[in-house]
């Protein structure tokens, strides 16, 4: 993990009318880091993530992603990032191969690059026999692993993962995290949200958002020390209970 910063946010704020969804958050993420982005429902995680992906314009503050400004260069950002969410990632009515091809095409990769990499990817995922099967017919865990591979198919600088392991069985969940580690070792920065707090432990650093603000940001070990907690679960509960708006 180098010192090169691939995400920087400074006083980043998003307002919707009177409502401050994201309230002046500041943080940095280094190249190859696995950065956990936690928070209760409604704490502002999704809004913050959308701003960093170039999907939503911040109200004020500063932020750069992969060296590009989120205000002016959001189109350039999109070429340098990958995105995967639990809800939408693959087309169920396309085959495994067609999905890979499609995403490769979106990012303007050449046919030969796509072809070569598809073979490799199918082998890694043990999906060679299912290459022409509809994604619909795959078990959820396989879909999620495939979705992740597709999200980093174009070798982005950063991959944003929005609750990637929801509902996945414990064995596949670990296989999934293995893939995250490998991507991180290759220098891809991983920005991940999750509801499984044991997964927070797998991250290099974790930030916890409460009511639009980042209340805590450090390595899991230091956070546990700071909050005198046995597990990240406890840290999270201590912080999230302070929330005034999470349920409103």
């Amino acid at each position: 993990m180098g010192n090169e910063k691939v995400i920087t946010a400074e006083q980043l704020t998003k307002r919707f009318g009177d409502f401050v969804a994201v309230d002046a958050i500041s943080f940095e993420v280094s190249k190859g880091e696995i950065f956990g982005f936690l928070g209760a429902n409604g704490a502002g995680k999704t809004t913050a993530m959308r701003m960093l992906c170039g999907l939503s314009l911040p109200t004020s503050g500063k932020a750069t992603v992969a060296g590009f400004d989120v205000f002016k260069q959001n189109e350039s950002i999109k070429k340098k990032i990958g995105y995967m969410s639990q809800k939408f990632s693959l087309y169920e009515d396309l085959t495994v191969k067609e999905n890979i091809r499609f995403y490769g095409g979106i990012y303007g990769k050449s046919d030969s690059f796509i072809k070569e990499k598809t073979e490799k990817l199918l082998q890694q995922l043990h999906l060679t026999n299912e290459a022409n099967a509809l994604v619909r017919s795959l078990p959820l865990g396989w879909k999620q692993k495939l979705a992740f591979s597709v999200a980093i198919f174009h070798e982005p600088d950063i991959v944003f993962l929005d609750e990637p392991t929801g509902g996945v069985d414990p064995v596949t969940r670990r296989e999934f995290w293995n893939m995250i580690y490998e991507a991180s070792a290759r220098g891809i920065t991983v920005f991940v949200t999750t509801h499984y707090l044991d997964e927070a432990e797998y991250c290099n650093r974790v930030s916890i958002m409460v009511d639009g603000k980042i209340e805590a940001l450090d390595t899991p070990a230091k956070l546990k020390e700071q909050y005198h907690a046995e597990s990240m679960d406890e840290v999270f509960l201590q912080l999230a209970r302070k929330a005034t708006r999470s349920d409103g």
Partner: protein
Amino acid sequence: MPAVTVDHITKTYGTKKSIVTALDDVSFHVEQGELFGIIGPDGAGKTSLFRILTTLLLADKGNAVVDGNDVVKDYRSIRNKVGYMPGKFSLYPDLSIEENLAFFATIFNTTVSENYHLIKDIYEQIAPFKDRRAGKLSGGMKQKLALCCALIHKPTVLFLDEPTTGVDAVSRKEFWIMLKGLKQQGITILVSTPYMDEASRCDRVALIQGGKILQINTPEGITQQFGRKLFAVKSANMLDLLHQLKSINGVQDAYPFGEFHHVVLKEGVDNITMPPNTVSKEVKPDIEDCFIALMKNNG
């Protein structure tokens, strides 16, 4: 008489060409007043099982009895007395909290005031927002409202299909406290969840994967049956450590587990030499360790 009896239930979907077995010869029973957890990942067959028990789906094989009534023959009487909260919080987004609750009360032939004592503790948490439309509520509030709606007719058996999915850790904790309260009022509760850590909150649990029940027991009973030594290990480079651990003789399995890696030793092996520069300690297995072991045995 058990509150729920499931007897060799099998359910398949699809055509002849591609058959998906959602439930494969599943049997268990739930006692009166028990808080019974069905724990497994998405696609394990939890929703199919709940739909069969709430008379929404017909099984291919086997029978099930809920509160003394057969789910096929006596489906009408079951529909009168069970409460059901489907996976998606099934509320009307364009109706307010109050309107949703009143509506569900009337279709179950009752009024909000008649059984208010049952939902009082839960409803009071959302009552300040009672005029807000359900579509504008947070996940935790929707979950509470959906639970109130499922309870309003004082069901004898309550079926909750993944009530905590997509809800944050705080709301999840609160939800389990609410369930405990309901259990004390004598309601039998069947709850399904993909979160292994929620197992310890149930009286008994069934671990389910790929349509098959892996094990049924009390949470303690399940962990006691693990039967192998388990160590938690950590070092500075966790990824390398995992590869090292897997190559050690006597190690059955090693996988990440929170800030540690868990190392399962082969049967009969009591100890191994850990790689250098590691911190390790023997730990008790939890439900997730058991689930992983059971999954790997079955697969």
